[in-house]
């Protein structure tokens, strides 16, 4: 795909789940490190982005796995690479970007569960305890894995720390990819 994009600049339109999503930033980063041109076509979420790809409106798409795993497994979509640190357990033949020679090209889409800041702590504690209990059930872990998710479930303090490390990380990616704040 990189070779073809280099041979025919701007032949590729890529669908993303929206401006500023991690798939969008990953694709912009790929344009830089791969030395290719692609036109960004943002949608309001991964589902409409993938529908556009299936309909041929765009030639490629970048998406978190849950929106595409079923289409990959059914053969409707061809997976070119995963951006995680390791291959996805249920897609053993799909290489990582690092394996393809793109050093440090690791991007994972996280999902956060949050409550407004003034929520009474005893309610936050109840929500947290129950959601962690749910997310650690083996049948839920399996159900999520089959949908393309890996459970972290590290609780409020761990999530707070993760948020504080993720923000500067992505700010750095935005700067390196040359994306102008909107």
């Amino acid at each position, binding site marked *: 795909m990189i070779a073809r994009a280099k041979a025919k600049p701007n032949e590729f339109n890529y669908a993303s*789940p*929206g401006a*500023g*999503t*991690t*798939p969008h930033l990953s694709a912009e980063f790929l344009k830089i490190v791969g030395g290719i041109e692609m036109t960004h076509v943002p949608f*309001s*979420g*991964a*589902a409409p982005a993938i529908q556009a790809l299936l309909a041929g409106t765009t030639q490629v798409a970048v998406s*978190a*796995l849950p929106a595409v795993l079923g289409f990959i497994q059914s053969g409707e979509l061809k997976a070119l690479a*995963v951006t*995680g640190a390791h291959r*996805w357990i249920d897609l053993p033949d799909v290489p990582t970007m690092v394996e393809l020679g793109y050093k440090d090209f690791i991007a*994972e889409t*996280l*999902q*956060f*569960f*949050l*409550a*407004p*800041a003034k*929520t*009474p*702590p*005893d*309610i*936050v*504690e*109840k*929500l947290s305890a*129950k*959601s962690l209990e*749910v*997310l650690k059930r083996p049948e*839920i872990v399996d*159900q*999520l894995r089959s*949908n393309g*998710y*890996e459970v*972290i*479930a*590290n*609780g*409020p*303090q*761990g*999530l*707070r720390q*993760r*948020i*504080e490390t993720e923000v500067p*990380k*992505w700010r750095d990616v935005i700067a390196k990819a040359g*994306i102008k*704040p*909107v």
Partner: protein
Amino acid sequence: MPNKTALPSRRRILRAASVALGAAATSSFHVTRASAAAYPERPIKIVVPFAPAGPTDIIARILGQNLGAALGGNVIVENRPGAGGNIGIGYVAHAEADGYALLVISSAFVVNPGLYAKSLTTLSRILRRSPNSAPRRMRSWFLPGSASTRSRN
């Protein structure tokens, strides 16, 4: 009951809540408007700031369905897409902080502070005071309920 004389600042609330979360201990924030023992007394809404059937929507529905059962109540998922997630974020940030409006959000939550400079111009005073504090407003809006999952792009 301590600290009932004045309205505590937002940061003070955040600090008090953090302590309670970490230690599961008593906190100074006893002026709660709802009781955890009775919670939930009505359906809980989880806002997803993206279209249905995407990664954030799917996890919200799986979590919501099971969380509702675990809490002995109902959890409904409401999609409020737009502006890269900022519409849904803003909706929950300004909703009543009573545990009935919650947010499941993708990494947009940690990307947007670096991307939506213009939409956050009202925060410029805060930003100038502390260069690394762009997410401070978002941090002060939200308390992490629990980390949920990650998915590969």
